[in-house]
């Protein structure tokens, strides 16, 4: 457990070091970036091996920080945090591997990248609402620069939209937090203290505070109709940033909902529950259907992320132990799978074909020219479709089971969402990699100039992500054994009780 704070330290230290290394050479900066990401992953895994699953947050570090406001530097973890910290380690490492081709200002790129990662680790480990919020903001800012400087299509627009949405969400969260803090007497930002005080707030205030906090966080989780930043942002971002955005940053929002909004105001959750669930379902179906008709490869994946995050939010809204456990599992699963999909589209395919238009890709027999990409994408697509054997399946099954308890109708719509996901995934597999070509296409430069061979970082990154989704698909209990006890803590129990109809 004590290894966990090192994930934050390694990331921030790596950020500074890679900035320095970047002045020497891009290669050095890359190596520093990889070392820092691997160190973070190693620390997370080391902590995981020593973790005893139990209920409640296990404090790792608790120091006073701003005594006047009762803000403490309080780091703690339970099975849910640990799951997401491990995910962050995996996604960060894979992201560095897939940005191995960054040459332009590599030092700055990896510095921003690792700052983002450090912020993410921080959010997942904070037990103090103020500290959590600080890390949350640290994670948001670098995104703008990553997209605006290294992005592609419409990058200024995508970056600006993403940051405006994020900040609007943060403003809601901050408003909700300060209001709750003041109403509680202004002595402490500790989650446990706030929750204890919140139970005595007037009901109307509770409803409003929950709304501010939940929807503020949910913007970042891509809750419909506040999701529109996600597809444009994902598409504009450089590959590694897309991987992190979809893979980890969207989880920050869902995590905030689960860790802050729900335990603080369980009664409000009961009131808001139908609205959240229906919005989540709308997101699952709407984004899935939009993904079905996109003609840009990356937009398909971007919308699919929104659709998959809809399952997470539905699971949270249902607030039964299975549904919330499934939601956390889905966070992990989607983090890995979205990373993989963006890696194939943005790095493996785009860097070689220089197009993401599906009709252009259809004209290339990509499964023959790029068999590695085809195999990885088919496997990732199967995982994304929720095929049994991959991590998405146990997660979605648990969400369905848990949601059914609250409302079979919601479960029915969610199941329809699984079908839509299958339809758009299969379509994009079919069109992108297995398009039929006319035997003698006039302009087929690809045949004469085979693509650059697949490099080792691409292979290593894909292998890491594929192994993760398969391992959790076949042994979901590895994570569920951490998550389930964590849901037994008094705070989580209160939140789950709130969701009961």
């Amino acid at each position, binding site marked *: 457990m004590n290894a966990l704070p090192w994930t934050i330290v390694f990331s921030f230290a790596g950020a500074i070091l890679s900035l320095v290394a970047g002045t020497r050479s891009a290669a050095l900066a890359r190596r520093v970036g990889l070392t820092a990401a691997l160190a973070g992953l190693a620390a997370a895994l080391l902590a995981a091996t020593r973790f005893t699953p139990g209920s409640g947050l296990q404090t790792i570090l608790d120091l006073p920080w701003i005594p006047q406001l009762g803000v403490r530097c309080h780091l703690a973890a339970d099975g849910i945090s640990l799951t997401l910290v491990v995910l962050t380690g995996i996604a960060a490492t894979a992201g560095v591997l897939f940005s191995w081709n960054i040459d332009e200002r590599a030092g700055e790129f990896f510095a921003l990248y690792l700052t983002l990662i450090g912020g993410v680790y921080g959010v997942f480990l904070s037990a103090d609402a103020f500290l959590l919020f600080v890390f949350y903001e640290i994670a948001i800012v670098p995104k703008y620069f990553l997209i605006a400087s290294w992005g592609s299509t419409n990058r200024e627009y995508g970056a600006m939209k993403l940051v405006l949405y994020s900040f609007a969400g943060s403003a809601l969260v901050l408003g909700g937090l300060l209001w709750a803090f003041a109403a509680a007497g202004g002595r402490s930002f500790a989650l446990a203290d706030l929750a204890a005080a919140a139970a005595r707030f007037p009901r109307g205030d509770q409803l409003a505070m929950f709304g501010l906090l939940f929807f503020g966080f949910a913007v970042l989780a891509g809750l419909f109709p506040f999701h529109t930043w996600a597809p444009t942002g994902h598409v504009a971002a450089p590959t590694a940033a897309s991987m992190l955005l979809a893979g980890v940053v969207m989880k920050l929002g869902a995590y905030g909902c689960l860790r802050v909004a729900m335990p603080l105001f369980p009664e409000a959750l009961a009131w808001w529950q139908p609205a959240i669930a229906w919005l989540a379902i709308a997101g699952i179906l709407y984004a899935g259907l939009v993904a079905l008709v996109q003609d840009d490869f990356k937009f398909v994946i971007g919308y699919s992320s929104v659709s998959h995050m809809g399952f997470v939010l539905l699971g949270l809204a249902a607030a039964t132990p299975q549904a919330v456990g499934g939601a956390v599992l889905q966070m992990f699963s989607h983090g890995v799978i979205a990373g993989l999909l963006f890696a194939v589209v943005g790095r493996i395919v785009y860097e070689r074909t220089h197009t993401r238009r599906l009709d252009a890709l259809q004209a290339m027999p990509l499964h023959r020219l790029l068999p590695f990409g085809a195999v990885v994408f088919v496997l990732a697509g199967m995982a994304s479709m929720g095929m*049994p054997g991959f991590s998405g399946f146990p997660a979605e*099954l648990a969400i369905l*089971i848990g949601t059914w308890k609250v409302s*079979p109708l919601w479960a029915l719509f969610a*199941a329809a969402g699984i079908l839509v996901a299958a*339809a758009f995934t299969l*379509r994009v597999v*079919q069109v992108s990699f297995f398009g039929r070509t006319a035997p003698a296409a006039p302009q087929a430069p690809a045949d004469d100039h085979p693509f650059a061979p697949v490099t080792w970082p691409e292979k290593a990154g894909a292998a890491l992500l594929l192994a993760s989704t398969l391992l959790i698909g076949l042994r979901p*209990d590895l994570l569920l054994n951490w998550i389930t006890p964590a849901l037994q803590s008094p705070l989580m129990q209160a939140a789950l009780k709130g969701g009961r109809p």
Partner: protein
Amino acid sequence: MSSLPLLSLLVFLPWAGALALALLPQTSESTQRRVALAASLSTLALTLALLDGFDPARTSPQFTEKHAWIRALNVHYHLGLDGLSLILVLLTGLVAPAALCAGFRSGGGVRGFAAFFLTLQGAALGVFLALDFFHWFIFWELSLIPAYFLIKIWGGPGATRAAYQFVIYTLGGSAFMLLGFASLFNAAGTFDFQQLAQLGADGSLARKLGGDGSWWLQAVFLGVLLGLAVKVPLWPFHTWLPPAYAEAPTGASMFLTGVMSKMGVYGFLRILWPIFPRELQAAAPWLMVLALGGVVLGAWAAMRQTDLKRMVAYSSVNHLSYCLLALFAGAQSSGRPGAVSEAATAALSGTLLQMFNHGLSASALFLCVGFLEERTGGRRGLDDFGGVRTVAPLFAALTGMAMFSSLGLPGLNGFVGEFLIFRGVFGLAPWAAAVATLGLLATAIFLLTFWQRVFHGPVAGATPGLRDLTLTEAAPLLPATALMVILGVYPQLLAGLINPLVTAWAGHLTPP
């Protein structure tokens, strides 16, 4: 018996073969063929080994393997084999190697085809052996992916659309089934088929889902039913089947019709009937009407086809509907004593035997049409040939056997299954048997038309270019043909494996 996990080996050896093929790119085609064929034949070899230790008198699953898997969802790794599973595993063992050999001939790379094919074979075996929904569903869904690629990459000109339609239809059904099991899990806290069946039989499952006749109980039942009905397919959910079977390469068509179509019927017997005996009984009259729709309209549609492959595809709809008809007739008579149970025994035995027989004869017919196609550059129209019998006598003889077996000629295996089905259905629901004879008539007409137009008459069309089969080419067909005769004359060989199970089942009209 031995302590070897035989059933796990049964499932995983084909997958090991697929993995070996995928990882060994630099081998010659003949090595790849040998590896693939060995992996595919492993099923037959292991099944024969199983037969030695199999006790037909025991009606509970044998050779079981059960290990805890996911505690949070009470999921177990659970494999077991009873008579029902056994004949389907045996069928897979017989059809798969022949289909694989046919696949080798269709060109376009041995390695990829064989790897996908073996993945599909392992998945089908898993479906027939897994006894926990979570475990079972992995195989059930996973089988779609290799099937998709087999059709898409090696199939005919319309393959892309056919494959997409096939997967989306089936997944659509599965999504509802998944939802149904999500609610079953909420009610019962287990995914284990045997435990669920026990709860289903004593009615406690119905109580937990809101009592007999409650809306939710019906919804859950319909969800599971839909998933299975699309897979079989039950009319009118069959529209994906003709294009998928017709566009698939010969080897894949053989496996799809021979083995994969049985997965759905198996699901009815293993899942739907045991877990929802009363609901199935209540719905049986309606379902029998749908099955009759498949019997009659499938045969009539086959009669109207000019493409031989589509004709065989529609005849599969017709034959599978017989299985379902008998199954529903049996389910309908649940709880009625006396003479009924004798008829129910006949109907159930008929269902099981028909599954096996259809697997042999339909896959043989696809192989024969495949030969015609291969020899004449892809022609397979009813009017493209004439007088094939004089040019290719061996081929004509083998096709004729498959055709007459499919037709239900006495003395061949197909007759036994269909006779039992008619005997059973007549005893349980005479009206249905009367309507089903229309299907028999239409089947006779289209198969005889096929026989006459293609094999008889003056040599015409593409026939002059035809060469007769060499002995190696005929080899994949020979075991199936031999079995058609043997099982036609001595059906006890197969029926003996399932008799105690079927008798016990029909005695209570709930699975033992």
